[in-house]
């Protein structure tokens, strides 16, 4: 039985427009998503900012009530059995907030272990264990207000694991963390999964999802646009090639024509300082490079390169297509 089952989950809300409550527009943050996560899996919810990742996670940890659809965690219904779910899941989110600033890490952990009914005689041991696991030994007596972002993140993880949850929800855990810290974080997560915890991770860092996750769901604008293992997703783009052309000048006008060329799958533009980078995904075997260059003839061109497609290309395509 899957550990997390999500069926047509939806969440709508009314945007706040200030004092005078004119008819506020209703925003659909999550528009009916479906996915399942098996026990011991590391599942990634990947998407740009505002896609609905955090809203989805907040629904799954019972902080938000869904506007429609349903979900089950460990067999318990999201709405009816919220209490049972809370006992068995952990929640960790990135950023500076979510800790009692004026208390030490130790006090923070003591409080949350009490909230999560960790048995009294186990508390001390468990807290010490976790402090060591996340590498805060020696600093646990200091007040959190003096902690760096990385230390706070590590404390969050310790807090999330106090009650040995069966499922751990991580919301953008490596945001604002330096590369070394982020790598340690990923190692910790990987180890947790090895020990049997099911993890659902949201992120907008593509390489993170690629590196860590058994399966990924790409979410954009409230909908899941693709689901599968990283290699499955890459397969969707691994055929063909990618041509990258550095353009000085406005490439926007030429895009329509480029897309119409036979053999071209997709075209996107990135800003690279003074230049624009036109990225063209091309079909297997199609020889369109000269056609592309002719099309961009009026503009000053820089480097032209051809390469294999990566997961990032798949992501950009999926996400901008939504």
């Amino acid at each position: 039985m899957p550990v997390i089952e999500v069926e047509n989950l939806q969440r709508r809300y009314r945007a706040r427009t200030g004092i005078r409550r004119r008819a506020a527009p209703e925003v659909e943050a999550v528009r009916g998503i479906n996915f399942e996560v098996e026990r011991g899996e590391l599942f990634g919810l990947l998407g740009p900012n505002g896609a609905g990742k955090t809203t989805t996670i907040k629904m799954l940890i019972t902080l938000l009530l869904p506007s429609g659809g349903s979900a089950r965690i460990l067999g318990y219904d999201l709405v009816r059995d919220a209490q049972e779910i809370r006992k068995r899941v952990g929640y960790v989110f990135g950023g500076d907030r979510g800790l009692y600033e004026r208390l030490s890490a130790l006090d923070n952990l003591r409080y949350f272990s009490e909230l999560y009914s960790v048995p009294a005689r186990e508390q001390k041991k468990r807290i010490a264990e976790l402090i060591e696991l996340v590498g805060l030994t020696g600093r646990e007596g200091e007040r959190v207000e003096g902690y760096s972002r990385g230390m706070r993140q590590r404390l969050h993880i310790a807090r999330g694991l106090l009650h040995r949850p069966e499922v751990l929800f991580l919301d953008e855990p490596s945001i604002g963390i330096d590369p070394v810290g982020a790598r340690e974080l990923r190692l910790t997560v990987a180890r947790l999964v090895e020990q049997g915890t099911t993890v659902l991770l949201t992120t907008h860092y593509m390489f993170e999802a690629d590196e860590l996750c058994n399966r990924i769901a790409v979410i954009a604008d409230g909908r899941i646009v693709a689901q599968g293992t990283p290699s499955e997703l890459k397969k969707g783009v691994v055929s063909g090639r990618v041509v990258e052309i550095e353009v000085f000048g406005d490439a926007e006008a030429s895009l329509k024509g480029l897309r119409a060329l036979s053999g071209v799958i997709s075209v996107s533009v990135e800003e690279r300082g003074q230049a624009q980078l036109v990225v063209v995904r091309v079909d297997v075997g199609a020889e369109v490079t000269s056609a592309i260059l002719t099309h961009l003839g009026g503009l000053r061109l820089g480097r032209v390169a051809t390469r294999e497609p990566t997961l990032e290309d798949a992501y950009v395509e999926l996400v901008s297509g939504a």
Partner: protein
Amino acid sequence: MSVPRLIGLGWWLQMKMRSRSAFDGALSIIYPMFFATSVFFIYRQGASSSALVAAAVGASVMGVWSAVATTAATSLQGERRQGTLELLVASPTPLPLIVVPITLSMAAIGLYSLVATLLWGRFAFGIKVSLLHPLAFAVACVVTALSVSVLGFVLAVTAVRYRSAWALGTALELPIWLICGFLVPLSILPHWVRPLSWLIPTTWGVSAVKRAALGGMPWRDIAICLVVAAVYAAIGTLLAGRLVDSARTNATLSLI
């Protein structure tokens, strides 16, 4: 889950946090003393010295309400800002058990204020309050603090759902002082206010404190206070579940 241990630890940590902030800690004790001092100066001009003594007792209890009124709802707003409110609601512990230690700690600080005000009245104004029944007085003070923390509990619970509830709590500081008989006898207030006053547990607590300090028997008032407070606690607990669900529907657990 051990309820006493949870409340005890929560209370202890709240006191720790409060003591580490000048605003939440020291100011909570000093601020009501400014009002008490004003009251002393007013009564000092009057003819009756027994009225001054009664005023000193009433003024000292004012601090207990102050400590809770201004902080009960704002504390949850603070948790919201800090990002911890979500974590508290996401935990399996029911909200009332989380809020109770918060309001209890505030009421405890209020008791500090009570003692400080009595001492201030004694040494700065020469007002001698001879506690004829010290034990009864102590019990009455604690019961009043409990009644006040129950009011704070209801306020705080509302703050889970309504982001602007803190303003209501702060605005209630003086009205409660006015109608619960701290200084102003209920008899000189308009008739229609009296039933309102009786419905507030603090009225009975204050009455008990005054009786115990000035030589009467407070036990009836203490009993009524506890009963009314229990009703408020029950209302607050029932409300809590509904308000949390409403907060989850309307997404008011976080700042945005």
